[in-house]
């Protein structure tokens, strides 16, 4: 039974969209992440240069992105909205501009 549940869970997870997001001084790519209400997604965050942060204050998300590692963030959009995100680890002159948006459409 437990094995069956694990398979179902794996199947469910595998159906979720995965979006690759890279961080580098001083930008995220993509800077605008498009999601749809009710469609769970996993963001796979990687750094192309140094340590960065990925903070979405309105979603209570605050993760660090270490070079050479993948940081996964699962989001289940429950309403149409736009959420700002930014780098929360100071990374140099231009850090203040390192930001983007998650846009959830109906």
């Amino acid at each position, binding site marked *: 039974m437990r094995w069956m549940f694990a398979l179902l869970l794996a199947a469910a997870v595998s159906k979720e969209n995965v979006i690759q997001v890279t961080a580098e001084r001083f930008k995220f790519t993509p800077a605008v992440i498009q999601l749809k209400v009710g469609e769970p997604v996993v963001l796979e965050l990687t750094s192309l240069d140094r340590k960065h942060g990925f903070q979405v204050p309105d979603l209570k998300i605050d993760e660090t992105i270490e070079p050479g590692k993948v940081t996964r963030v699962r989001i289940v959009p429950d309403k149409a909205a736009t959420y700002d995100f*930014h780098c929360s680890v100071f990374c*140099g002159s231009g850090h*203040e501009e390192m930001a983007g948006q998650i846009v959830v459409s109906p």
Partner: protein
Amino acid sequence: MTESRGRREFMQLLGLGGVVFASGLAGSCTNILRKGGAQEDDFFFVQLSDSHWGFKGPPNPEAANTLRQAVAAVNALPATPDFVVFTGDLTHTTDDEAERRKRMREFKAIVADLKVPLQYYMPGEHDASLDQGKAYQENFGATHYSFDHKGIHFAVLDNVSDPAAALGDDQIDWLLADLKPLRPEAPIVVFTHRPLFDLAPAWDWATKDGSKAIDLLQHWKNVTVFYGHIHQEHHFKTGEIAHHAATSLVFPLPAPMSKPKRAPVPWDPAHPRRGLGFREISVDESRLVLKLKQDSLENLAAVQTGAYETGF
């Protein structure tokens, strides 16, 4: 946790653009402010912030001048402050470690002209976050410390050497040990670079574990926090603790979350020093009432001719 108050509720505009903000250390003692006649026990100090020495760019094409102008303006005050405190971002960040140290040496050479013998410094993220405060400590010493001055306890907190904008448990423990001997009604002033409260997390205007420090400080009745980072005046209360942000010496930033991005307010050649300045904080003999006066660098000519109005 928070209680906001509009600035206009407190402020009185004086001549030459000087603005006075009267605030009890306990947050409710403004009725015992005196309007004039300094007493021997009164004293005042000056807060300067965010000079970003080394910055070059359109937000302030004259950035190489404003720190010197601020030093001249402080030296021209009718009375000498007991001390000055710089609340961080003394220099603008650079990846070049040699250049970082050069900027710090240049900053020190400029502020050496201050006629105020007692000076306190602390880092901003531009000074310390890329090397966890190494170059800063070489040039200015400890990044967090405390001192007593004429009956007030001052604590300087470092929320920038960790590039993730945290104080860290060790510093929180240090703060508790530092304050523990003080009586509950002791007047306490905290200096920090970033706001300790969540002013605008989406703009990185917060301290990750600032609520721990605030929760700790709430155990004392007379606490005021002065900080920088946001390049503008801002006044806020968390419980009984007043938090006052300072203007910068390089370029102003927009009001919190008032724009899509926290980009600098565009430079106005007709008013090249608009939004830049420093703050005088006077303390009455009770040590429970602080009086804040904003001095604009835009009024520098008035300062130089002595036509300058103080708030105490």
